[in-house]
């Protein structure tokens, strides 16, 4: 079962914090991959807050194609993070030509566009690049978005971190999501590696999504270009979140109500029962059927954790003002924030959503029965 760890901190952290946490949870992942999502960046990227950052893996040929394509669109490179891997990759990790993390300046003619449109084009550009590299594997694109860096690779997290030099001082973030993978698909497809990202929303999950096929069918039939991929059944959690918020304009509370609605009998005596029932019916194909623990990050940098309604996957939230973490196991949390008041740790139950807003003052927990 995959291990999940997310941390949010007022002070920027190195991704190594998350890698260490994954490492202590090692018995739960098999080194088949690690995914990192960094946002609210510190380090050198703090200066380029508004500029879209492209993260991915490219062959030399892929890199040339990328440059050609983005240049034609009038994107200009503003800043590059140089990741120089060691000579010999760890066992199981393929040798790659280039790990790319680059901040760009928007094409001048995009600047006048409404934000919505600019964001849409940014997503389409990412999808186009992904598509260009799909056939020959020359480009693997993880994200193309302001203030977001994503790193994914096959291998054991700790060894990968050493190999890629993730302790690089330029690489700092206030919000980090990290997943250590336990591969359940035989071929290791890097696009199946969590966290998944779309337009500022990122989530990662452990467990299995048994309702995957109808959910995928529903999302792909929304006629929205971004709802694609699905090399992993967990990608739908990210897209449901995006759909709930961007497509329907609903909040995180309704994300929980959509993926794990209360039963009809329960809604009968919920203060908001009628509305929730209608939403449940309209979003019926988005009901998940776990077992899953979902940890995610919203565009406003709030991090959160929810479970499927059977709650067959554990999860814990804890920390102290200034720094909090969400982890699939308590040992991960202990490794990251040992000096906290453990009595205030929260293990969310099946009706709960826990979240840590960007102020990092406290863990907010609310229950489906309250809203």
């Amino acid at each position, binding site marked *: 079962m995959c291990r999940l760890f997310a941390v949010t901190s007022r002070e920027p952290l190195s991704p190594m914090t998350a890698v260490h946490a994954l490492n202590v949870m090692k018995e739960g992942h098999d080194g088949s991959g690690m995914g990192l999502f960094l946002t609210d960046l510190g380090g050198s990227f703090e200066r380029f807050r508004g500029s879209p950052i492209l993260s991915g893996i490219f062959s030399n040929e892929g890199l040339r194609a990328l440059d050609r394509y983005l240049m034609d669109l009038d994107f200009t490179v503003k800043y590059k993070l140089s990741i120089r891997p060691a000579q010999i990759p760890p066992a199981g990790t393929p040798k790659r030509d280039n790990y790319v993390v680059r901040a760009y300046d928007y094409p001048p003619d995009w600047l006048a566009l409404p934000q919505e449109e600019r964001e849409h084009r940014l997503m389409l550009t990412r999808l186009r690049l992904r598509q260009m590299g799909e056939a020959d594997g020359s480009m693997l694109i993880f994200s193309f978005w302001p203030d977001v860096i994503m790193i994914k690779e096959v291998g054991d997290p700790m060894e990968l971190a050493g190999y890629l030099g993730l302790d690089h001082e330029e690489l700092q973030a206030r919000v980090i999501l990290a997943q250590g993978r336990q591969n359940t698909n035989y071929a290791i497809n890097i696009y199946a590696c969590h966290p998944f990202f779309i337009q500022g929303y990122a989530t990662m999950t452990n467990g299995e999504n*048994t309702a995957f096929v109808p959910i995928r069918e529903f999302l792909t039939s*929304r006629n929205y270009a971004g709802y694609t991929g699905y090399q992993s059944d967990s990608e739908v959690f990210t897209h449901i979140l995006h759909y709930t918020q961007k497509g329907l304009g609903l909040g995180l509370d309704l994300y929980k109500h959509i993926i*794990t609605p209360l039963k009809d009998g329960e809604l009968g005596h919920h203060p908001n029962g009628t509305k929730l029932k209608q939403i449940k019916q309209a979003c019926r194909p988005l009901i998940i059927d776990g077992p899953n623990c979902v940890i995610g990050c919203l565009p406003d940098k709030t991090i959160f954790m929810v479970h499927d309604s059977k709650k067959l996957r554990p999860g814990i939230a804890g920390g102290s003002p200034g720094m909090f973490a969400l982890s699939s196991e308590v040992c991960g949390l202990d490794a990251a924030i040992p000096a906290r008041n453990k009595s205030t740790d929260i293990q969310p139950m099946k009706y709960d959503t826990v979240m840590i807003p960007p102020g990092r003052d406290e863990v907010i927990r609310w229950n489906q029965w309250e809203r």
Partner: protein
Amino acid sequence: MESMGTLTPSTLSRTDLPWQLAWSREKCTLCGQCTAVCPVRAIELGVHRKRVVQVGLGLAEKPGNVFSVYHGIRQKTEPAFACIGCGMCDLVCPNGAIRPVRGGEPDKLRFHNNAGGVPRRRGGRRNDPRSLLDEIKFIRISMLTDPALDAGRHDFELRTLLGRILPPEALVRAVQDNGWIPPVREIYPLIIGSMSFGALSPNMWEGLQMGVAYLNEEMGMPVRICTGEGGCPPRLLRSRFLKYVILQIASGYFGWDEIIHALPEMKEDPCAIEIKYGQGAKPGDGGLLMWYKVNRLIAAIRGVPPGVSLPSPPTHQTKYSIEESVAKMTQSMAMAWGFRVPVYPKISATSTTLAVLNNLTRNPYASGLAMDGEDGGTGAAYNVSMNTMGHPIASNIRDAYLNLVKVGKQNEIPLFAGGGIGKNGNLAANAAALIMLGASGVQIGKYIMQAAAGCLGSETDRCNICNIGLCPKGITSQDPRLYRRLDPEQVAQRVVDTYLSFDTELKKIVAPLGRSTSLPIGMSDALGIADATAAERLRISHVL
């Protein structure tokens, strides 16, 4: 040569009949119960003459004959009295002295049961026991990463929706602006499909209604039952139990005068209105209640004179074009109940289903589509219609669902599948397969008659005389001497038993698939079949 009497082209021997009676002279006590019970008078008292040659010892006495007579059973061979294999004689015989036995080769009766130029009519179902649904297996078993669930102890939410469901964007807008939100019913996915008051005996109807009421009120299972085209007893229309009933309107409009007049007095809205455009057993043919069954009660409820056959036209007479008719009827039915009741059409599964469906997607009042496959049953139809007309349900429901997926409306118009579900007894497995192919729920008719009332009919042409009012079990008869054989309370009890065991079996199917929080509609990754062409056609896994 001895005279053979009159030999006509239709003179048949017992060998030529589909069912032959095995009768034991040893065991028979001549009580006469079998001849009394036989619904088609296939047997009568037989007086048989017997000769025994007696040869004395020695030569003094010449050999002689001793003639004796014994009494027993004679099977008639006239086509009109051919044994239907119902086995009632066996059921009533105290000594087990008689039973019907199927003939060894295809019968010759089939060439002759059209006396007077009238082709064979019967009740029942298609005479073909094969079922593609039985071949579908559930292959996605949760192992390791997602432990299978405990069917006995876990919480399951196995309900479905009947009603037009707004797309999420429109729903959110409607909630914000206080707009109209179409009515949606949360119901149990196994519906008792349309069987009319008239086709069924009063005791059968009462039993089914009582069973449904019990399931709702005592067991918390929101089971619904459809009336079929025959109206609804006035007291039920005015009772709180109406909410468990789907009222059907069909091309004969039988009973709708009564229903419309009861409208102001209804305490509850019905669950839904089903507009019947077709049925699986006899696609393109209207309903038919033969005169035998139209007694005074039936006639009163339907608003017709007693003792006449009631053939409904194959199509709604108000129809100018199907689109217009469906739109108008749907809308006016919705309007009659103040847009509080879902209204949906029921059609025979057909290769033109998608055209119907495309129309419905554009009609904001259409609340679903019921599709009845070729294996559907009926109270009365021409044999040829039953055996050869219609479309199998599996590929039809799949096509319809995938078409909805293509336009993104798979959650907006629920599809209900009927026709042959559980024809070989595998009710839960067949229902689950159809749900995973895309149905929101299934409708059953024959199954509940077999399970709740002991119907003897089969896909190999046993009994199936539901049309002539002589149902030996009292299920489809309007003759009180027959239907009093059926105790409504016991039917109700069997309905409850059937639903409870179905519920357990459904859980035993979905739990290992790791599903419990919602009905796995369209979960096609769980399905596999050994037949490669079927797998390809249904877009499910091919497994060997």
